[in-house]
């Protein structure tokens, strides 16, 4: 599958399984934190298990000088929580961020995304949208080019009412599955622009209470995205259904990197969607690139 190579993706999934088994043995703690909406969920138990599974004994230091994580304290819509990871090293060649892990402690599969930046990335600044199942810590671990690990975290409260961390119109998302768009968007801070890749996909969690409907809705979600600029990688990534319906990722392409921009998207049912845009993307309007799948 794709450019990631089988070996690396296999390792990712083994790690994913590990995380799940860790979770089921620590299920009581998870259930308790999920049930209590009043400030609990600030429990480090899940993270300690994940840390061991993913990073072993490696030291992880406070990352405030290296990166920041912008996430709302109150998630207005738990199905679509916009987050931004800002690379404070700025992609300089001496010392840069090479890899990011996004962990949402109290989600069903906490290891939500792993992103490896490539030479066609300007920096490791990324925005995306995630689901939040309950009050939870959200954390990003960054690996520097020197092999050091840094972490930042934010506490997020999912708001109540009738909202739930599921898509509003899964049928429509399925009908258009695989459509992609590329846009240039404004960054929230500063005057900068970013490239936004949008992917139509229901990203169904598969964690519904199927016994209620006697119908089976297995998990169906995007699990890998690779973005290339010409023959150079912008990033490789793997993810779970923690990403919202119709996944969206914003990133910075290295200025002057030659060639077209290509996105390859893989889901857990082995569907592969691929699309190619002439760049610079700022000249690519939304309406220009519907269904130009290669």
């Amino acid at each position, binding site marked *: 599958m794709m450019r990631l190579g089988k070996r690396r993706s296999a390792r990712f999934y083994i790690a994913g399984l590990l995380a799940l088994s860790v979770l089921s043995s620590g299920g009581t703690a998870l259930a308790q934190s999920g049930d209590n909406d*009043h400030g609990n969920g600030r429990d480090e138990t899940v993270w300690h298990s994940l840390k061991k599974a993913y990073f072993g004994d490696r030291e992880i230091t406070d990352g405030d000088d290296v990166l920041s994580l912008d996430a709302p304290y109150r998630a207005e819509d738990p199905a679509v929580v916009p987050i931004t990871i800002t690379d404070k090293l700025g992609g300089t060649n001496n010392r840069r961020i090479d890899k990011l892990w996004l962990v949402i402690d109290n989600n069903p599969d906490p290891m939500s995304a792993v992103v490896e930046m490539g030479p066609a990335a300007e920096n490791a600044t990324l925005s995306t949208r995630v689901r939040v199942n309950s009050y939870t810590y959200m954390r990003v671990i960054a690996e520097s080019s020197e092999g050091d690990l840094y972490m930042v975290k934010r506490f997020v409260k999912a708001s109540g009412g009738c909202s739930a961390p599921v898509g509003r119109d899964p049928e429509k998302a399925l009908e258009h599955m695989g459509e992609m768009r590329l846009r240039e*968007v404004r960054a929230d801070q500063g005057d900068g622009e970013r490239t936004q890749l949008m992917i139509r996909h229901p990203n169904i969690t598969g964690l519904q209470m199927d016994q209620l*409907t006697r119908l089976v809705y297995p998990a169906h979600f995007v699990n890998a995205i690779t973005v290339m600029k010409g023959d150079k990688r912008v990033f490789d990534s793997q993810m779970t259904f923690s990403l919202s319906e119709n996944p969206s990722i914003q990133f910075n392409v290295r200025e002057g990197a030659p060639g077209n921009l290509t996105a390859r998207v893989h889901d857990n049912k082995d569907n592969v969607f691929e699309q190619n845009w002439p760049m610079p993307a700022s000249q690519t309007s939304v309406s220009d690139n519907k269904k130009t799948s290669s």
Partner: protein
Amino acid sequence: MRIKQFYGALSLVLASSAIAGGAQLSHAAASDNEAFSVVSIAPGVFYHAGAQAEANKLNHGDIANIGFIVGERCVAVIDTGGSPAVGHALQKAILGTTAKPVCYVINTHMHPDHVFGNSAFKRPGTTFVAAEHYSEGLAARARTYLDRMRSVLDLPASIDWIVMPDETVEETLELDLGNRKIRLHAWPTSHTNNDLTVFDEKTGTLWLGDLLFVDRVPALDGSITGWLGSVERLHDRTDVRYAVPGHGPPGSDWPRMLDPEIAYLTDIRGGVENALDEGRSLKWAEQHVALDGREDWLLFDDYHARNVSGAYTELEWQ
């Protein structure tokens, strides 16, 4: 004109009833100085006004308008409230009004404040009816909803609270309550993807479920374009004499009572389209779009940003 009859005696019966959870419910009611009551809005059509508030321990999830229609043969219940206690209270209200059995429980959509009283009505001879996508919608959210009910209502919400329909409506369905026909209509994705309205031909009463919010800010959990399309279609209807919204007071000022909601949703759609044209982010839109409505709507800050988020993630694909 709106006919109003209050059933005070009935309320007393309810307040002293010993149904499970009933004690807490009557405490809740007592705190508002008012027990569970139903009002007749037209001959044989009864409604209970839910509180214009978020669900909490005091109101027991009694925040949506619920009610029933009485035919010569049997009764159709329309939504059952936000917890089994509310459902039981409604059931008592029905028993105090008519000896006829409940043959249908109709759910206008899958939100917990409208359906978590269902279990109070589950017995042989009662058919549960909902729109086509109700079951998937509720199943996908059930875990979240039950967790939330445990923490917000402090009740042991279990899977028994979830009652799935025996019959679903793809487009329309007519039910006969005995010399009284009610017409059910399933809508394209609007407030949710399983909105169902109920029309009582005899009195011209239209139950809109959450296709209509009055005073309380609308909550978008479906499609903004779909919802606007549906209310615009409804706006053209001339056979409606009384309208019962999912939240807020019923009325006969049809179709003008739709206008504030249409204006609000239109503002959001326009504001989000502008934000998208300018390349603004989802976060920016949540913080800037259509804030003028804050003075006009109850619970604005609890729902508005989420409504914008829902509109943004839909309209960015247009």
